[in-house]
């Protein structure tokens, strides 16, 4: 009995050393050496060279000249990576149905010129609350608004969105999607909104 507790204690110490410290530190060193960009957090810079976020982390968008992401339940204002999660509302939840209703209404108000039907992902919250992507349909849905706000043609913008669509990996893994941050940064490069950026950044 005591013998086994003794072994348990000693093995605990030994295994913490191996699996609790040696392993993560060694892996960190190795990862930093082989994939420094990814291991560090996939940070992306804007045209001015300042870090504006992580490519894999979604962020809040409100301006009409940017493509918007999905509703988020992460943190008080959404898209808070330190408070990730979904709404956890049931499909029969009155709150969910009401929230979806107002999301539809808000979306329609923002996009008076939208011709496509309302895409599901733009009116439902993601699981992480920091979903960096929207569906291609959701991007196309916003094209008339963004084009109008930026004063570029719908056709040009549609082509840009088309280029931003990431297809399924190997044609069947996951879903086609558009990374909102990447699309918006590309948009800023192709059709900058003069003055506004500078104003926003100060």
């Amino acid at each position, binding site marked *: 009995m005591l013998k086994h507790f003794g072994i*348990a204690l000693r093995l605990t110490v030994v295994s913490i050393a191996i699996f609790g410290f040696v392993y993560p530190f060694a892996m960190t060193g190795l990862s930093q050496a082989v994939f420094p960009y990814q291991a560090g957090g996939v940070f992306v810079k804007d045209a001015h060279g300042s870090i504006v976020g992580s490519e894999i982390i979604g962020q809040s968008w409100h301006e009409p000249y940017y493509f918007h992401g999905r509703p988020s339940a992460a943190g008080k204002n959404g898209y808070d990576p330190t408070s990730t999660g979904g709404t956890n509302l049931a499909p029969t*939840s009155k709150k969910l149905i009401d929230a979806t209703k107002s999301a539809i209404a808000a979306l329609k108000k923002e996009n008076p010129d939208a011709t496509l*039907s309302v895409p599901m992902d733009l009116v439902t919250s993601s699981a992480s609350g920091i979903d960096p992507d929207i569906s291609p349909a959701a991007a196309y849905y916003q094209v008339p608004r963004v084009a109008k706000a930026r004063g570029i043609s719908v056709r040009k913008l549609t082509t840009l969105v088309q280029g931003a669509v990431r297809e399924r990996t190997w*044609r069947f893994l*996951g879903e086609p999607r558009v990374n909102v941050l990447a699309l918006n940064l590309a948009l800023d490069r192709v059709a900058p909104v003069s003055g506004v950026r500078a104003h926003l950044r100060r």
Partner: protein
Amino acid sequence: MTTAGWLQFAAFFIIIIALTKPLGSYMARVFEGERTWLSPVFAPVERFIYRLSGVRADEEMPWHVYALAMLAFSAVSLAWIYLVLRTQQWLPFNPQHFPNLAPDLAWNTAISFTTNTNWQFYSGESTMSYFSQMAALAWHNFVSAGVGIAISVAVIRGVARTTTKTIGNFWVDLTRCCLYLLLPICVIGTLVLVMQGVPQNFNAYHTVKTVEGAAQTITGGPMASQEVIKELGTNGGGFVNANSASPNENPTPFSNLFEMVMIFLIGASLTYMYGKMVKDTRQGWAIFAAMAIVFVAGFCIAYAFEGAGNPLIHQLGVNGPNMEGKECRLGVGASALFATVTTDTSCGAANSSHDSFMPLGGLVPLVNMQLGEVIFGGVGSGLYGMIVFVVLTVFIAGLMVGRTPEFLGKKIEKREVQFAILAILVTPVLVLIPSAIASVKHDALATLGNAGPHGLSEILYAFSSTNANNGSAFGGLGSNFFWNIATGVNMFFGRFAVAIPALALAGALAGKKAVAPGIGTFTTNSTIFVVLLVGTILIVGALTFFPADALGPIVEHLLMLQGKTF
């Protein structure tokens, strides 16, 4: 539902089938103490560990000594993790200066990780220091998985051996498992995940100014190394609250596939190892087949309902699958698959919000856990749970061939039935009784995230998950003192009240002599046996939980069809 969704499912399952045999053979060598191609590296380390810990590697243990060693180790590791969580603010690697955890939450979390459950009543990204994540949680992901696998190896030995008292050495099984099996896969897995974009650093959280000028704090940490053992060891405790839904933990559809493969990998390979160790690989494949049937059925149901979407939202003029609580890069196919995979096993990692699944889509993970998580199952716990079901099936069906039931030539008699029934009883006792109490208890109901039948589903899900040591949740449920204590107790008994009867069963079987098989004997590698095994698992599960589930997800579905909301 899309062709791509089905292809993704098929690809996943083909990979699992393809890996089962090679890894299973390797595991059989590891646990039978043979040399492997990794021995040149690990054999000296292994000997060193034994020397430091005082383990005598050649000592064989009877079942009760094995159980005792297992309990001693679990007790020590439980104490360690509690200690770390209660003192983390004074410990190193805490760049965010997170405070110590409250006693009830620390207790809940300590049991949660000791029992391989990884039920999380906290958000990792705002609660746990890097020290706690590594030295308490990630370390525990290794050893609690190792404990589960060790028990299953011991149980297999009990089935395979004849007229002996001993079923192996716990310390050796645990050490070899962590060293030869978990560690090498984790090293490769970490690199794969980092390549996909999972962070692996010790940086403090990074606050950036977003494109629109808002401040956003981006989390970091040694995530990839923890992520891989979280899946491989079917632990499931996420580095961050959103778990594998978070693009940090699971950035791409490929990382998603990789993580799912990690979850099933050992559970599936254990079936082949079992076949190897009982000297008839068809026995292993029969169990694999039974598991596969329930797995495929579960996925089809979940995918069908998630793919069809929410009619209450369709009524608002928005069509499409149920995207509430799902990620765009993954979609319903990968989410339904992940949810099925994570609850077939005792993993509990989640890449979507199970609480927001359609009623019958969410019923799949719920039922998976209520069946005792034997569909590939928790690493180790799935197989020994399955062997309990095999014994039960053999006993009922074996009678119908007109002989005293035999399992691999060993007569199933009073003692075996007793231990099997004890193990089977754990699930109804630990799921239904606390759920019943919670369903009429004020402080329990206070933290429900949803009303109506779905509230009952949240209660059932919590106790089904903690009992089965799964750890996934209907996340709407909040924590308070009641839930911390109740789920803590539940996880504790859910682990040990099954493991100990399973070891006792192994001890009883090991002592038996095996009767030679003939055409008159009941075989456990035939198609009809697979059908019966599946039937037994489903019938036992369904009969136990049908009333409760009928008042939860099932009636919620029927009411939803009538347009009711709560």
